[in-house]
């Protein structure tokens, strides 16, 4: 090889390296799926054959009921590509995808994130998409409407309840039917711990998950999200703080998420667990002990208003071929939450149908749902009152709750934490 050939090769190699680098610099978002690839132009307008759906269910793999059901929703001649991400990441991923103009056709967002996404301009309204938004229970559909505009509908709903270990309660001489308010719950906790068992597990982790778990006590005390410094709010914080201080609840509640606190309950050492309806099926299949669910009690009795959980089906804003994207989105959404299909979707996800009549049929078909029927009806949307301001209120409440749990019963510390939260 002559010297000049060597040089040529070197320059070529360098140039190749350069091109590769430049090619890598574009499209930094690995999680986004380009949905505009399979374009075919028909007579009337553009139709798209690839439909992208994003969901926050990484736990459901491709062989799950949910994935199979979603695939079966693809209209003829199209294919559905499903991408899953953790709840906390999905909104950020969606933000960059809308910016890049490659948003998915359909996205399933956790309900408290909907107002934030809507006011940031990430979502197309239900009217633009041609979505049917009628027939959903008002308390469950609430988070989908922001400033009078409806963006989407619930894919289903879940909520929180109080599980108890029937074996421990029986051995400690506690009748679950007597637990109707906070005082009787505290009496029961005193009785089981006196009998050598542990009390209650709940998730007090910083952030939305911990707030979700605290809201039944917060609302059950009569507190409102727009007044975090009220006496009722302080009472709710004090209840949880005392559980730590009295040793009824584990100190790890401070960092436990809902799965971790459920795992603690599964050890069979704890008498109670505050946790979600999504564990109802697992609870019914336990063999070590008998776990039963009941509604969470309010401060002075009755079922506490628990927050509604679950995702909303939404169509993100499209910059290109919007009509074709929305046409596909509305077909998928109809397949997921249309009246004939709601129960199928809910069953695939372990959720409740978001329509009262359909839910009644669902509950009647499976006895494990019976104790949850009242919980879901008295549940309320987290963002219904505050809309997009909920995110900041939740952050303030989370800080106050963390401080309350740290206080381990110290009443002054709990009060000052909530007063500080009220000031923002």
């Amino acid at each position, binding site marked *: 090889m002559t010297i*000049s050939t060597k*040089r040529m090769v*070197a*320059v070529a*190699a*360098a*140039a190749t*390296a*350069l091109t590769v*680098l*430049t090619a890598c*610099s574009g499209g930094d978002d690995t999680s986004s799926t380009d949905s505009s690839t399979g374009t075919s132009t028909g007579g009337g307008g553009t139709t798209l054959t690839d439909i992208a759906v994003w969901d926050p269910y990484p736990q459901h793999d491709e062989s799950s009921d949910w994935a199979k059901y979603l695939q079966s929703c693809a209209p003829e001649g199209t294919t559905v590509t499903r991408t899953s991400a953790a709840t*906390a*990441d999905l*909104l*950020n991923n969606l*933000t*960059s995808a*809308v*910016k890049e103009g490659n948003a998915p056709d359909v996205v399933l967002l956790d309900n*408290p*994130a909907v107002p*934030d996404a809507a*006011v*940031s*301009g*990430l979502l197309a309204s239900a009217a633009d998409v041609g979505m049917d938004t009628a027939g959903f229970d008002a308390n469950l559909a609430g988070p989908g409407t922001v400033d009078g505009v409806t963006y989407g509908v619930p894919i289903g709903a879940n909520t929180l309840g109080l599980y108890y270990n029937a074996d421990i309660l029986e051995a400690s001489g506690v009748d679950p039917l007597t637990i109707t308010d906070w005082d009787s719950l505290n009496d029961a906790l005193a009785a089981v711990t006196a009998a050598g068992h542990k009390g209650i597990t709940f998730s007090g*982790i*910083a*952030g*939305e998950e911990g707030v979700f778990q605290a809201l039944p006590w917060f609302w059950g005390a009569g507190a409102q999200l727009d007044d975090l410094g009220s006496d009722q709010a302080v009472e709710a914080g004090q209840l949880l703080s005392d559980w730590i201080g009295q040793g009824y609840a*584990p*100190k*790890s509640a*401070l*960092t436990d998420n809902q799965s971790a606190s459920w795992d603690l309950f599964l050890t069979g050492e704890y008498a109670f667990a505050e946790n979600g309806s999504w564990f109802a099926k697992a609870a019914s299949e336990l063999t070590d002990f008998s776990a039963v669910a009941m509604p969470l009690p309010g401060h002075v009795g009755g079922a506490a208003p628990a927050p509604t959980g679950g995702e909303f089906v939404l169509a993100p*804003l499209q910059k290109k071929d919007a009509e074709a994207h929305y046409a596909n989105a509305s077909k998928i959404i109809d397949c997921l939450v249309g009246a004939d299909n709601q129960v199928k979707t809910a069953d695939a996800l372990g959720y409740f149908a978001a329509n009262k009549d359909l839910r009644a049929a669902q509950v009647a078909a499976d006895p494990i749902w019976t104790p949850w029927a009242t919980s879901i009806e008295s549940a309320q949307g987290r963002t219904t009152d505050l809309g997009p301001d909920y*995110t*900041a209120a*939740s*952050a303030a409440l*989370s*800080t106050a709750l*963390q*401080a309350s749990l*740290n206080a*381990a019963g110290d009443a002054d510390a709990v009060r000052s934490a909530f007063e500080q939260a009220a000031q923002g």
Partner: protein
Amino acid sequence: MWFVKTSSAAVLAAPTEADEVVVPPRARRRIRPTTWAALGFVAPLLVYVVVLYAYPLYENVSMSLHRFTRATYVTGEAPFTGLDVYREVIASPQFWTTVRQTTVFVVVSLVVQYVGGLALAAFFRRSFPLSSLLRALFLVPWLMPIIVSGTTWQWMMDADSGVLNRFLGLVGIDPVWWLNADHALASVTIANIWLGIPFNLVILYSGMQGIPDELYEAASLDGAGAWRQFWSITFPMLRPVSAITLLLGFVYTLKVVDIIWIMTMGTGSSQTLATWAYSMAFGKGSSAVIKYSEASVVGTILLVVALVMGFVYLAAQRRQEER
């Protein structure tokens, strides 16, 4: 945390970059084929530096001077605010607390890691049966994924049933609530020290291999004991290696997010500038409110601190060479 990572890389890349960009003086007059080839070889490096360091750095600083919200991504509207966001961040009640916590975390981690690493390196200098196996075992914290070690520390520090409190119970000490707001900083610092010792051990140990044995032989002939040998030979001879170990350790510790996040999510006293920036940038932790501009401000502050440390290191190195 790309904006924090780049800070360390930029500091480290600076000297090498200067070495390689030097163009032979003759080539300036007429561009020869060899010069083209040289440029061709330099180009990938330049592109690499611009795309992966300069551009993100520029974006980070630019973001800190504009008001970014989630809606900015769709509308493109990010009004220029000058230093307003800097003022807001520095005036916020969290800022100085976080700076103090970061300082404690970095200084305590660095000092204990260095002393521990140095002691172990000196211990392993003399080989004895199984010494290499034992030394390899000390590397385990470094090799283990942090998600594993972080979660394990969280379990061990569990207030009710953690193994740490059980040990304390054996010697009659009351259980400690390791991960509560007051103790969180101490807990994450302990875990971080454990993580950092192997790094210090490896670098200082290899530095000790470069010290000639003759020095020790001569010293022992003169009657110097082990302690005297350490302070008069090992420690001074290790000074350049110690400087780079401490600089790297400083930059690594300053930008630690993972171990803290896994153990406490940066709650209570364990919030450092790095975890604060992370939680604001991505809406993680207590607040899901996105604060891109505020996060960029904290990122830029971290960057400046790391840069300053880089210059301190360069100055120290120059002084050493002049001697």
